[in-house]
């Protein structure tokens, strides 16, 4: 049954997933290319210096890319469910509805994680060749809250999308925007260090919100 749920989500998301992998990795690759050009033009030493002394991370373009990827993933996945109330079909299947909803969310999270893993793979393939471990860690630590924001954006958009009434949808959207702000308070290396595990925990707990929307959908709120 879980396989079937994932199969359906995969059919919805596969083209988007491919596009997301290409675009996000493309942006990551572009950042690295710029860095490579800078190393060529100004020398590796200059890059190391601005990274150590000025907290530069060179992947600033990536900042909102995972968030966007997450939001779009949720739209691609849940708009078809809300179109003409298709979700009724999904919830009517002989599978516990909570398991159904959380499996759908898990499918999206797994695909997003795959997409982000490719990004990080791209970075890890290049960065250690020109940077010491400290600076690679700096770059990844600056990017970590952005990637968490990608998951948060996904789960919050799912919550907004699944909500059956427009009034609350707008409310949820505003709340979601404020929540996402918490992931962008310091675009510098290691700022989120100690807080990151808690933020990650909170991020994945955001999946609980979707169940509120689905419960309201089930109660026929209009």
């Amino acid at each position: 049954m879980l396989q079937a749920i994932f199969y359906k989500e995969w059919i919805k998301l596969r083209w988007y997933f491919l596009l997301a992998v290409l675009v996000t990795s493309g942006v990551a690759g572009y950042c690295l290319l710029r860095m490579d050009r800078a190393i060529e033009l100004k020398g590796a030493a200059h890059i190391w210096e601005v990274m150590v002394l000025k907290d530069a991370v060179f992947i600033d373009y990536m900042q909102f890319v995972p968030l966007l990827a997450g939001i779009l993933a949720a739209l691609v996945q849940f708009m078809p469910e809300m179109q003409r109330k298709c979700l009724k079909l999904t919830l009517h299947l002989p599978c516990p509805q909570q398991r159904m909803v959380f499996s759908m969310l898990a499918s999206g999270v797994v695909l997003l994680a795959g997409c982000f893993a490719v990004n990080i793979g791209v970075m890890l393939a290049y960065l250690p060749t020109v940077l010491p471990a400290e600076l690679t860690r700096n770059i990844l630590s600056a990017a970590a809250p952005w990637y968490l924001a990608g998951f948060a954006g996904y789960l919050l958009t799912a919550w907004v999308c699944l909500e059956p009434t427009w009034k609350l949808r707008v409310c949820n959207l505003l709340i979601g925007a404020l929540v996402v702000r918490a992931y962008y308070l310091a675009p510098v290396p290691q700022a989120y260090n100690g807080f990151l595990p808690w933020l990650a925990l909170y991020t994945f707990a955001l999946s609980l919100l979707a169940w509120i929307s689905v419960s309201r959908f089930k109660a026929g709120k209009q």
Partner: protein
Amino acid sequence: MIRISKIFLFVTLAVLAVWQLPWCYAFLTTKAAPSRFVMYSSLLDDFILTGYTEGVGITRQDPAGHTYSEHEVDSLLPLFYMRQLVADERFPDSLFGVAVSPREVQQTSFNFRMRPSAVNAPQTGLYFLLESMPKRVDLEMPADAFRFTGEGVEFIVMDTNTPDAGKSARYTRMLSDKGFRFPPREVSGNPTTMKEYDNGYLLLDADGKLFHLKQTVGQPYVKPLPLPDGVEAEHVFLTEFRDRQLLGFLIDTEHRFHVIRADGTIVRTGIPAYDPARDQLTIFGNLFDWTVCVSSPGVNHYYALRADDYALVKSLDVETASDEVPGLSFTSPYDRYVRPRF
């Protein structure tokens, strides 16, 4: 499940409220706080407070309330307003019986600033060691960076991103020979070419012992600097002021403020307390006196020190308006971390 979900939503809403509402309030109501500039005048033997008063304009007065004109203040702080006095051809030939020249004033004046956010900040753990006796006049950034490990120091050639085993071994051996225990607790230096000379780094080793490390003609120079009895170092700051009289500052675990002289001797100053993790420090120093400002939340402590023995001459507390609204915040002016705090 729905109950857990709703509780989670309400907790989120509550957190957003205590975070965003005070922020909005502060954003809408904050006015520019009246700031005062305070300097100690040895000529007056008191502080001069320059500030802006609504409706009156710029006021200059001493703590007793006597007001001074701009012209008078220039003369009362001749070393600080030297350029103005020189331009007005009012700069004195001597002060307190000592001949002074503008060049000398420029050489010996300094200012030093340290914010808690610079102390409470994540460290990358990579450092650049400049040549302290360069062949050319200008300083140059090195071609390698170094890091400390549990066993030693490791230099990495930046262009190739590979370790320089020979140099690493030389420095590690030198440090070990001088009794340095890896890894260091604190490393303080100013790796930039925008300074007159390079003094390398001040290091606190794993045992809290103080060392001075620099590179002299390509070779390591390491000097242990014994701490006075009863002093346990917590923070060190390498200064590199123009007059080369000081190596740096040292703050001990009891927040006492010490000066590390160029010869390595450590002298306690008259500053009663300074906690780098909480207070902001500003020092304006010159030939005769230092004006030290230790800003704590709600109050600025001003201390006047004699420049020769760092003894406390005078102090002044000025309360500062705190317009902080209680609430939740994720960032703080006191550190560079993101985490929730009230």
